[in-house]
């Protein structure tokens, strides 16, 4: 047990090292010599500025009065600082045509089950693919992760038809969205969680089995606690993916404004009111705020998940 725990901790440490950097010298510090420190730093600063100024500009604009946004650039703020919360008031509580708060709620209502459901199903399936032993297991597993090659676009129309024919959305309005997100998340989720699970030492499970523990006990008492960091990183990914998604939201809300997510509402707003910058800036910032909070508070897991997905396999 302890061995496995240390291992998980160690990979977390890897992740934080990837974000921060340990004390040792590495290939890059030598490579930096290429450009000389001054020029190198200058280039890095230019990139960093290019990568942050657009978001900052949007944020500052969202706080400026409507007439100012439309007439002058956000940098005018520095010579003539006028700020207001009016745009946010209009976007969060104004008339129905500009009110985005219901879409914000929609996004939350879509996101939470659409994160929980694929996670639970994928953890269970990963257990079946890594701990349980059965004939044809590896073949089915390969089939499942090969499904990653099916682009969303290939499944949209028939899936939509299935939901319409079965009336899946008639009682639980959001059900088609939850299920669609779950289905599209499963191949990658099962693949990643399986990889983490197969790193847990077999002896640990064997010992528990010999002591008479059933699979449910092994699953709940041994696997889940050990898997927590992996589960956390996948949960973050899934949440951000669903929150930021437009395609699934547009398709499976059937154009119904009652269940459309925030992204779809914003996309419509850019089309209909392309010049209403006071609404767009505030609206966009509201849609960004949740991912930013998730990202900054759970950055460690986020990076770990990224590395697990594309470097470690």
């Amino acid at each position, binding site marked *: 047990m302890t061995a496995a725990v240390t291992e998980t901790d160690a990979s977390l440490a890897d992740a934080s090292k990837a974000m921060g950097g340990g004390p040792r010298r590495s290939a890059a510090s030598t490579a930096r010599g290429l450009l000389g420190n001054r020029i190198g730093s200058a280039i890095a600063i230019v990139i960093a500025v290019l990568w942050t100024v657009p978001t900052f500009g949007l944020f500052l604009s969202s706080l400026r009065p409507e007439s100012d946004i439309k007439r002058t*650039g956000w940098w005018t703020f520095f010579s003539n600082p006028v700020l207001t919360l009016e745009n946010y008031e209009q976007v969060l509580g104004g008339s129905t045509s500009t009110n985005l708060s219901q879409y914000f709620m929609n996004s939350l209502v879509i996101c939470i089950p659409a994160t929980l459901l694929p996670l639970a199903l994928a953890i269970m399936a990963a257990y079946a693919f890594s701990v349980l032993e059965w004939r044809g297991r590896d073949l*089915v597993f390969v089939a499942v992760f090969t499904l990653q090659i099916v682009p969303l676009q290939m499944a949209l129309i028939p899936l939509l038809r299935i939901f319409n024919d079965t009336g899946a959305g008639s009682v639980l309005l959001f059900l088609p969205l939850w299920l669609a997100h779950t289905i599209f998340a499963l191949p990658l989720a099962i693949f990643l969680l399986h*990889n983490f699970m197969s790193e847990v030492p077999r002896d640990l499970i064997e010992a528990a089995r010999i002591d008479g523990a059933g699979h449910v006990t092994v699953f709940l008492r041994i696997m889940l606690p050990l898997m927590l960091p992996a589960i956390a990183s996948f949960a973050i990914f899934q949440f951000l993916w669903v929150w930021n998604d437009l395609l699934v939201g547009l398709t499976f809300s059937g154009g119904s404004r009652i269940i459309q997510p925030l992204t779809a509402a914003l996309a419509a707003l850019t089309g209909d009111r392309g010049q209403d910058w006071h609404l767009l800036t505030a609206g966009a910032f509201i849609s960004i705020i949740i991912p930013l909070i998730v990202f900054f508070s759970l950055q460690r897991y986020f990076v770990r998940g*990224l590395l697990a997905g594309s470097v470690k396999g």
Partner: protein
Amino acid sequence: MGFLLNTRVGQLVLAVILFCAIVAVLLLIAKGADSLRERARRPAVVAVFAGPALLLLAAGLIYPFIRTLWMSFMDNRSENYVGFANYVTALTEPSNLVGFRNTFLWVILTPLLSTTIGLVYAVLIDKSRLEKVAKALLFLPMAISFVGAGIIWKFVYDYKGAGQDQIGVINALLTWVGLEPVRFLQDSWMNTIFLILVLVWIEAGFAMVILSASIKAVPEDIIEAARLDGASAWQLFWSITIPSIRPSLVVVLTTISIATLKIFDITRTMTGAKFDTQVLANLMYDESFVFGNNGLGSAMAVFIFVLVVPLVMFNIRQMAKNREVRG
């Protein structure tokens, strides 16, 4: 009961209750299955643990996949077989060809630019005092939706007639140094490049994080040895760092290419696919859900699939290989 069915929060609460109930029931069944006799036990336990996910995948991914393939050979309403007519239309209609041309540009430029910028940045900030903060800055756009990023950049690219005050940063700078303002999003074909830069802005952070981790994993003794042999910094970079991180470089390039092939949000938010900025994924959406042309829409989806397959296969193989090396 009305609260649960008729309000958003109610639906959410109901969903969470249902979710807990489903998990509890599954685990109970698993417990029951686990106490069965030896012969029946194993398949029963496997069925409970893997069954729900496999069923959903079969109904929601495998069946739709086959059906889309079939629909791509049928007419608009999927009633008559039309052979390859949809594929011919997709590849001959001038408006569709623009979509293919642009998608090609996207897939070539986005991975190259974001990986280069990510790599340069990762190298430059490595071991610097502010590394953590510097990384978060570049990484931040990754948390933003394509729609959000689209709005952010639409604002940056904003254009006003020559006499007026510019509210977009770039045009303000251009007029400030005495140049004419540019219609970034309206003038083809450069507008596609400006849209691509938005995706580069999002993906560079991803490339940077992966490459930075892999740069830090290059063994010190190799570098030390090369340095003792008198290798210059430039030589070290090209003959040690780059070959050592090549597996990660490849994965980053292919992963970004795959994401790029499916992108439609940026085009949709920023230009509405007007002004010759059409892309494949947006063609698929428009044909299927705006014009109700299921046959052509399905054919577009198949094109995306065919383009993605080699990349994903390559990626999966590469990931498996990286695992072996590390394992």
